[in-house]
């Protein structure tokens, strides 16, 4: 008989019989189960969708708020520098040399500069009020307004002529604290008992909040009416935007050649930039919550897939009978699980983008949805789905084919 081991008719493993499936068919098989159970597919995908949506929304909202700050910084410019005296070895604030504003103006890429000199006195609305209102009295130069690119809500700033007159310009907060919101009644203030006419009120300065809480008089007027010795306590300057760092590096030497270490140079826009980074903790917390809902969603998918494998015993048996290998069966269920999760990911990305758009729009921000975040959301969902599908797919692949085709 041909079954005899020595018989030449008996052949061993014929390699020409190989099951193979085209990638497009593997995907078709893997999504067939989802397409034929649409309701369940949608409900199962919701968990992932919520997780991805919250992550995308968190990233989108923080990116939008950041984009808004950056736009603000761009608008305000990053070429405004501020020079202040550092503290000396005793911790006392030193003054800047009297000639320093002129020296600063002599640096090539400096476009404009103005000094402020804090006077050791206070400003009141009238002589009967003596409370400390936290308003600084600064003697300054007319160039200050151009240097800080400030604007006035009322009146005008000091000029060459008014710098030597008993007139004052109020910072926005100072005006508020002193109780002025217009110049209609030709208001005056008292500085060290001397009456100064208010000729202007500044708008809020986004880069220099300390100037909002100050009033400004001319350098000459400070000497003339208050008998004050004007020593610069700060210099504001605009550098050519391409040479900000160069200017910054030569400033200490220029301002105080004798003691460059006692000069502090800062860039007011840096403070705004720092604000763009503050909400990291909250962001991480929300991302964590999104991550938790992703895990819950993934477990949900694994759960539904296990049930699906039990329900589809017959289909699995049929596919094995048609020539599917264990690997093909496992692949089908992994693809199914990954597609299910991918669907959730796509819904989640759309939802998260919508939330970002809505929220940022309401805040009046620029809408910035990070594309990398969207791609990551979809990719995370895909990988998560594939992982969630591993256990169910192994169970499906392990089903004994003879058992699977048996009528239940």
């Amino acid at each position, binding site marked *: 008989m*041909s079954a005899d081991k020595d018989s030449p008719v008996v052949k*061993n493993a014929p390699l020409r*019989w190989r*099951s193979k499936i*085209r990638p497009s068919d593997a995907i078709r098989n893997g999504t067939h189960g989802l397409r034929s159970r649409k309701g369940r597919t949608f409900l199962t995908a919701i968990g992932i969708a919520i997780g991805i949506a919250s992550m995308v929304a968190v990233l989108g909202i923080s990116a939008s708020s950041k984009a808004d700050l950056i736009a603000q910084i761009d608008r305000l410019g990053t070429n405004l520098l501020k020079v202040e005296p550092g503290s000396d070895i005793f911790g006392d604030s030193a003054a800047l040399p009297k000639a320093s504003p002129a020296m600063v103006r002599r640096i090539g890429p400096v476009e404009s500069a103005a000094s402020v000199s804090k006077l050791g006195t206070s400003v009141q609305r009238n002589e009967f009020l003596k409370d400390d209102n936290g308003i600084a009295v600064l003697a300054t130069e007319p160039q200050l307004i151009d240097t800080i690119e400030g604007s006035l809500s009322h009146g005008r700033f000091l000029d060459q002529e008014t710098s030597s007159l008993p007139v004052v310009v109020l910072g926005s907060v100072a005006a508020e604290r002193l109780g002025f919101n217009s110049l209609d009644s030709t208001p005056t203030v008292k500085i060290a008992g001397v009456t100064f006419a208010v000729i202007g009120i500044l708008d809020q300065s986004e880069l220099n909040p300390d100037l909002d809480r100050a009033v400004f008089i001319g350098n000459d007027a400070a000497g003339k009416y208050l008998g004050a010795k004007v020593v610069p306590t700060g210099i504001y300057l605009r550098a050519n935007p391409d040479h900000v760092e160069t200017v910054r590096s030569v400033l200490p030497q220029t301002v105080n050649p004798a003691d460059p270490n006692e000069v502090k140079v800062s860039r007011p826009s840096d403070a705004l930039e720092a604000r763009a980074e503050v909400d990291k903790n909250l962001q991480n917390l929300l991302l964590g919550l999104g991550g938790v809902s992703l895990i819950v969603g993934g477990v949900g998918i694994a759960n539904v897939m296990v049930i699906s494998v039990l329900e589809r015993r017959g289909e699995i048996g049929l596919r094995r009978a*048609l*020539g*599917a290998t*264990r690997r*093909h069966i496992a692949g089908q269920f992994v693809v199914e699980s990954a597609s299910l999760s991918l669907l959730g990911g796509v819904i989640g990305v759309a939802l998260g983008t919508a939330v970002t758009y809505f929220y940022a729009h309401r805040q009046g921000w620029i809408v910035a949805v990070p594309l990398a975040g969207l791609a990551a959301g979809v990719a995370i969902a895909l990988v998560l789905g594939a992982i969630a599908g591993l256990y169910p797919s192994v169970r499906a692949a392990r089903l004994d084919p003879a058992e699977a085709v048996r009528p239940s």
Partner: protein
Amino acid sequence: MSPVLELVAVSKEYPGTPPIRALDDVSLAVDAGELIAIVGPSGSGKSTLMNVIGTLDRPSSGQVLIEGNRLSTLTDTGLAGLRSARIGFVFQQFHLMEGSSALDNVATGLVYKGVRRQLRLQMAAEALSRVGLGHRLDQKPPKMSGGERQRVAIARAIVGDPAIVLADEPTGNLDSHTSTEIISLMQRLNDEGSTIIVITHDRDLADGLPRQVAMRDGAIVADTADVSIETVAARPLVGVGSSNDMTKRTNREGGKQA
């Protein structure tokens, strides 16, 4: 010419106390172009035999050869490959995808052969017209009669032109008229060249087929083509189990002692 299928002293035991001997030293040879009915009472091992022939299950001992290839040398993946190319299955419960058209269901029979979809659909349409459903390609199973569904399943089994078509109780869910139609279809496909093994409870249906193999307690007790079982073959098959007997569930243990 070597047989397309050969079983040599095949036994199959399922674990248990005592172990269940579902196949007991079965030897059988089937030539290409045959149409065989396997009959026997419930629990006699017909489905087990079918699974072993169809390579869904491995025998505990003995050899199975398909087209001269010893199956014991094949891995699980190798067996799947063999099924994809050489074996077509028809089941009692059809195993059709409810949401897919007749055409798509039949085309599924070629998915694991790596046939591209366009060609698959073309071949599926041909197979459907061979089973007389050329006009219902887009129909979905829920809208088809039992007979039509089984014809879709038969088309799926033959679409890849397998060496052997195995049908386990293909008429089990059908009325007698439809069952006769299905058996006639099998006969026609056999005339066209297919090698077909049909399991059936229905004595009358089996009687119409060219060769009948009778089983009881996991053993072949009659084979109209096998001269080696002369004693049994000499007697009429009705003696092995009448159609009335078949409908009763035979006590296997009792049968063994008898």
